[in-house]
């Protein structure tokens, strides 16, 4: 197989795997910080138990996020070295700043939080979790700033065959970041909400520690309603931004083959891959124009016209992201999102009216609904990244120009198989541990003695 294809497969697998853990860390670190804050300010023991229980699941998740994140930072240089040479002057800075400003913060203070229960005052201890949560979010912002440059390069000039920085504030305040970070932030809320709803429902059904899981359920339902609605509203504005920055991505995800005004929204479009004929094409007239311009008229460009335009602009080549991937990942994301709005509202309703006993089937459903945010998170990024095809940096670097020259397909195959094996074993282990501790409940989380007195004795220097 050729180097480019292997490099793409490896990047896709490792980044999807990495982003499996990121949204939960973003959401759960905030929730744990809030729970511990309530414990510190109210002194109620129950919130300490909640902090420890959800904190333990956070730690398992966090560890996976950390180790898979290092792979991403190294992989730019390893398999995409020519890309790295081209963008390093701009793209390297946010990555370095992320490590220096955010990653140090979260990693250092997470260690203090884990080991510091008896060594710090309550106020200081909860502060360390806030620093972890803030660090994770600053980290997300810098990574998204780096990604925004790939989606919509700004603040640069081409000198000696590479992109050089001209305006850093343009790079930081790049258009996509204003929808991407809020989108990821609210996706984090949705993920933690469904994670907590599922686990809480499991225990409520079995009448385990109801005094702990009812508050968890309520907090999760509230976060779920806020998060799912937020993500929808932001997603809507993001669609309009894509129309400006990457019209081909929009045309592809809508399977809009020809320019329309007013443009129709596809309900379902199926194309025969062999004959290229449309088998089924159900569309709502004018609806896509409304999504893009908030009125029922307005031109949305089609795949065929854009392809012709780009050939004129960038030379011959294929500029169409595979519509099967973008179209269906978009619909999976939005479908999961709409379903989650509904589920969150029902969950909140059940909690407010205390209808837990009345609708056990709904509670039984919730543990399975944990899959929904993961589906939406993954397909959302697949859409964002695959939709940029054939560019690594939109309009500047094509995929084949970014891949490493010093790397052979044998090397890539070795690492690809290695990562798949290790990641496969780790995801099984993580799921096993998550299930074990989620099912065990807070009693399980307290297996580790919570109050341990400082381990003696002599400070390091005295022998």
């Amino acid at each position: 197989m050729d180097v480019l294809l292997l490099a793409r497969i490896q990047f896709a697998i490792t980044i999807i795997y990495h982003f499996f853990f990121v949204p939960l860390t973003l959401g759960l670190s905030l929730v744990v910080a809030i729970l511990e804050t309530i414990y510190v300010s109210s002194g109620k023991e129950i919130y300490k138990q909640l902090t420890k229980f959800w904190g333990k699941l956070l730690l398992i998740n966090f560890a996976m996020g950390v180790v898979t994140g290092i792979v991403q930072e190294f992989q730019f240089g390893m398999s995409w070295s020519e890309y790295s040479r081209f963008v390093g002057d701009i793209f390297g800075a946010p990555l370095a700043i992320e490590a220096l400003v955010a990653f140090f913060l979260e990693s250092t203070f997470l260690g203090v939080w884990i080991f510091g229960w008896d060594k710090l005052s309550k106020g200081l201890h909860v502060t360390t979790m806030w620093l972890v949560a803030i660090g994770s979010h600053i980290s997300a912002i810098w990574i998204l700033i780096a990604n925004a440059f790939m989606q919509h390069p700004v603040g640069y000039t081409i000198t000696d065959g590479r992109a050089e920085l001209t305006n850093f504030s343009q790079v930081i305040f790049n258009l996509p970041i204003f929808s991407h970070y809020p989108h990821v932030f609210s996706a984090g809320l949705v993920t933690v909400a469904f994670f907590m709803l599922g686990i809480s429902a499991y225990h409520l059904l079995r009448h385990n520690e109801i005094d702990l899981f009812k508050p968890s359920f309520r907090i999760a339902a509230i976060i779920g309603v806020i998060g799912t609605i937020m993500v929808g509203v932001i997603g809507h504005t993001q669609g309009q931004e894509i129309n400006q920055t990457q019209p081909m991505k929009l045309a592809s995800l809508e399977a809009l083959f020809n320019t329309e005004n007013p443009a129709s929204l596809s309900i379902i479009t199926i194309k025969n891959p062999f004959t290229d004929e449309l088998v089924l094409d159900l569309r709502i007239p004018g609806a896509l124009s409304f999504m893009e311009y908030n009125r029922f008229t307005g031109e949305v460009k089609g795949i065929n016209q854009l392809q012709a335009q780009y050939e004129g602009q960038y030379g011959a080549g294929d500029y169409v992201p595979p519509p099967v991937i973008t179209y269906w990942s978009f619909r999976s994301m939005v479908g999961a999102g709409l379903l989650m709005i509904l589920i969150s509202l029902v969950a909140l309703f059940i909690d407010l009216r205390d209808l837990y006993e009345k609708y056990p089937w709904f509670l039984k459903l919730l543990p399975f609904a944990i899959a929904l945010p993961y589906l939406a998170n993954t397909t959302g990024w697949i859409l964002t990244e695959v939709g940029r095809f054939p560019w690594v940096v939109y309009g500047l670097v094509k995929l084949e120009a970014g891949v490493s020259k010093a790397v052979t397909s044998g090397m890539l195959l070795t690492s690809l198989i290695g990562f798949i094996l290790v990641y496969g074993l780790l995801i099984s282990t993580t799921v096993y541990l998550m299930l074990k501790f989620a099912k065990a409940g807070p009693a399980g989380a307290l297996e580790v003695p919570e109050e341990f007195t400082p381990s003696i004795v002599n400070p390091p220097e005295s022998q």
Partner: protein
Amino acid sequence: MTLNTLWFIFIAILYTGFFVLEGFDFGVGILLPFLGKNDLQRRTIINTIGPHWDGNEVWLITAGGATFAAFPNWYATMFSGFYIPLFLLLIGLIIRGVAFEFRGKDDNPRWRNLWDWCLFTGSLVPTILFPIAFSNMVRGVPIDANMQYVGGFFNLLNPYALLAALAVALLILLHGASFLSIKTTGEIEQKAKELVRWLWLLVVLMLVIFLVTSFIITGVLQRLNVLSILFPVLGVLAVLVAGYFLRKGHFGRAFLMTCLTIVFVIFTIFTFLYPRVMVSSLNPDWSLTIQNAASSARTLRLMTIVTLIFLPIVLLYQAWTYWIFRKRITNDAGKLTY
């Protein structure tokens, strides 16, 4: 001093921070299966580095990110050229990182043993790979006129690189054992102290051989300056003083000296490199340097400001964490976190 030189120094500092800090927790990880006879002892050993290892590892991430930002061509040539070693490094760091979190989550002795060996392997692999990578960069590797590495994997396993790996691995072991000797009590403390005394002579020997070989092999003799003599001398001096403190029974001070030894060894390598960042063995003109590998002056200036603000802050709060967890860890199951 030019911005490019300043950034060369920053990168050296970041790698130094990584080797000094993660160095002792790599050392502890390698010693874990040998010094910890039972589960309780192993837990004690892991708990000595438990609060710190993750923060220590970020020094590497930052060094990698900073190389990308300040010297994109260095980052690109090194990471794509050393593809297989870096892949092995990543696998090592992955199994090591999760081992800390997973080990204690099940009581099954086989489960724990598995993660102990992951911790061991994940600590040993980087300890060997980093000196191999750095010694090759300073010795010279096949880099063509287009900054592409054209050698294979086995090119990297030359005698000089293996010597570097052996010397540095022993130094890291000494570093880790000294750390354990000041962070534990009882049997582990005794065994660590014994090991430190035993290792010390070996480290001195290998370090001197490595440094002398480096003078010959890297061609630095033709371009000697004050620093390229000063740093290796200070490195040897530091390890000798460490021996003095060991004899006197001052293990804390001996640990400080192993820290300093590592600092001077890294500084030596970087001084030998300067002003190149990766030496080409094919043609000296094809070497990557602090000029041709660097980012634009604007980016370097920007990164300088960010680094001057945030690096001191990081140092302050990391120092604080070492102060918080300064006490020794005892073999008391009830008092262990991991």
